[in-house]
């Protein structure tokens, strides 16, 4: 009988002999990854000390917690990815740290208030009282994950992504995000959470706004962090109104009231088919159009988001976008269409006509708008003209046909797949579709027409998955 040890060692030697040297390109990749990680580690270890002389930040806390038996490299501020006091995401990222002192917008204590006028909010966005500094580029910080989670959680939980995004006094500020596919629902899969870590350990920043009336995050993921409802940032406080030009503005009232939008969500991943186009800046905040893939040629479909200085985006709620409130439109034909005709939250507001029900797009814009193909048919609650397709407008038929053809569901009794009208789509013909004023347009910033689809005319789906 063979000795097991001999077999194992023999197998190891056989495999080793058959293995060639490491590929030079792979070694270069390994070396580069290690170098970046070490630069990042030095940077976040130095944040606390650099921000407040005599106070040891994360480096000191780390030493006394999980890694106290190993030496720490001398804290050195990296020459790259330095913090700036008022970054502008729309400008090219600089690798030089900005050390200019911040000019305060006001000299009062940094306290929250229930109401803050927009002039003050805007001034503080550029000159925050609260001392935070955001990095021009987030720094990968997976080495610090053990400050937020136990080893078991890291081994068995989602593949958390942690980045160092800024600092405030002796604290380092981190953004925690999640991969798109994981064990829990996709609804929170892309959520971003903010944490500060200092010598006392990690804190989850759940109420980042300076307004006491804005929503706080209802929960957070870290098992090691304590909830911090006191820390807030002037640079993360949304103005009540975001003017995009031509007297056209987004509200933020509904957006600020939603607990799941507090930290925003991850930016679109490369290859997702989504694209962000910045349209206006408000200090470190940027309003952007989030383009998704349109299902109809000649139409660009978008929604609005607010990009944060730490690399997340906050979707602007439908209620805050002018023109989406279909139920409040007054129609010239005298027909009252203010009663919601479908169940579900999705049925409260219109959506982009060139996408399906499950899309996030709020409006579509034609590549070339021909005013002769449209006629005025009503007014929104805030007095904007509402146009609908003129007879023969080919876009109406295209939208109707796509929504009808892409309607499908499952018969709950038989389990059969149902499509089109059988699935419950309400409009058999384009004429029916038009008679219900399903497709309409409201003028947006820059004079372009935002086309929208009433909720009842969107395609039927079994579920958005």
């Amino acid at each position, binding site marked *: *009988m*063979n*000795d*097991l*040890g001999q*077999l*194992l*060692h*023999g*197998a*190891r*030697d*056989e*495999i*080793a*002999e*058959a*293995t*060639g*040297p*490491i590929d030079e390109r*792979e*070694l270069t*990749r*390994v*070396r580069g*990854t*290690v*170098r970046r*990680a*070490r630069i990042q*580690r030095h940077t976040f270890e130095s944040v606390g000390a650099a921000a407040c002389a005599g106070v040891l930040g994360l480096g000191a806390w780390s030493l006394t917690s999980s*890694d106290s038996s*190993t*030496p*720490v*490299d001398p804290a050195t501020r990296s020459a790259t990815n330095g913090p700036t006091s008022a970054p502008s995401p729309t400008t090219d990222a600089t690798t030089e740290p900005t050390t200019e002192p911040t000019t305060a917008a006001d000299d009062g204590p940094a306290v929250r208030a229930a109401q803050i006028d927009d002039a003050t909010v805007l001034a503080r966005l550029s000159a925050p009282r609260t001392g935070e500094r955001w990095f021009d580029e987030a720094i990968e910080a997976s*080495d610090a994950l053990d400050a937020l989670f136990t*080893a*078991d959680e890291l*081994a*068995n939980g989602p*593949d958390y992504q942690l980045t160092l995004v800024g600092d405030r006094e002796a604290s380092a500020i981190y953004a925690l995000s999640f991969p798109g*596919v*994981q*064990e829990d629902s996709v609804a929170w899969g892309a959520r971003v959470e903010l944490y500060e870590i200092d010598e006392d350990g990690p804190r989850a920043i759940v109420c980042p706004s300076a307004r006491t009336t804005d929503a706080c995050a209802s929960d957070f993921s870290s098992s090691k962090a304590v909830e911090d409802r006191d820390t807030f940032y002037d640079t993360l406080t949304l103005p009540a109104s975001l003017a995009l030009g031509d007297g056209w503005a987004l509200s933020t009232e509904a957006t600020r009231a939603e607990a799941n939008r507090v930290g925003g969500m991850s930016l679109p991943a490369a290859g997702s088919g989504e694209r962000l186009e910045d349209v206006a800046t408000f200090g470190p905040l940027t309003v952007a159009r989030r383009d998704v893939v349109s299902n109809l040629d000649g139409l660009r479909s978008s929604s609005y988001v607010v990009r944060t200085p730490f690399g997340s985006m906050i979707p602007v709620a439908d209620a805050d976008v002018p023109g989406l409130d279909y139920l409040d439109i007054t129609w010239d034909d005298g027909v009252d269409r203010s009663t919601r005709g479908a169940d579900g939250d999705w049925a409260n507001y219109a959506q982009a006509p060139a996408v399906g029900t499950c899309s996030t797009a709020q409006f579509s814009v034609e590549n070339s708008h021909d005013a002769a193909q449209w006629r005025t048919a009503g007014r929104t609650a805030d007095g904007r003209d509402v146009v609908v397709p003129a007879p023969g407008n080919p876009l109406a038929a295209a939208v109707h046909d796509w929504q009808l053809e892409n309607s499908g569901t499952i018969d709950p009794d038989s389990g059969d797949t149902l499509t089109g009208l059988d699935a419950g789509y309400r409009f058999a013909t384009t004429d029916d579709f038009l008679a219900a004023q399903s497709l309409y347009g409201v003028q947006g910033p820059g004079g372009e027409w935002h086309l929208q689809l009433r909720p009842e005319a969107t395609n039927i789906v079994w579920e958005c*998955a």
Partner: protein
Amino acid sequence: MARPWEQLLDQVARERYPRLVAHAALVAGSTSDAPDLVQEALIATFRGRARFTTVEQAEAYVRRAIASRAIDEVRRRKRERLVALRAAAEPTPPDTVEPPGPGRDVLRALALLSPRERACVVLRQMEDLSVTETAHVLNLSEGAVKRYTSDGLARLAQILGTHPHHPDETVPVRPTTTPAVQVPRLTPTTNPEGAR
């Protein structure tokens, strides 16, 4: 001029790579994942704060990182498959079958062990780590290390038709939940196309 850690990394990667790949193959029960495991372990070892100054010390760290990452990788794949099944997003890919190659029979036998059994056997049997050291590397209790090692060695001996190398394991072999008759016995002459 390269920093000391870069010089050490280069030296470990160039001089010890084949041995590290072989170690990774045994721990993972597969040669296909071994190069990736080695590279991840090199990154994990040299990005951290470990205190080592010689190639031998660095190699020892990398070997331990390979073992702990092999277990994590298996866990991650299991989670992803569960998620995929739950979401019915994609069909679950079948387990790969070790292709013919060096050490194939031993690898096929190791692949039949659980990831923890495999890691414990390799670290205890081949790396000569103590129970305490193995428990630390794999984030297991010492009792679990003894049990996994004992079970793993017993199964390997049964599959390969050998006798265990470590007769002094202090925990008696736990009665296996798999009847002996169901454990495939692999020899160079049986099922040369590979067994599932």
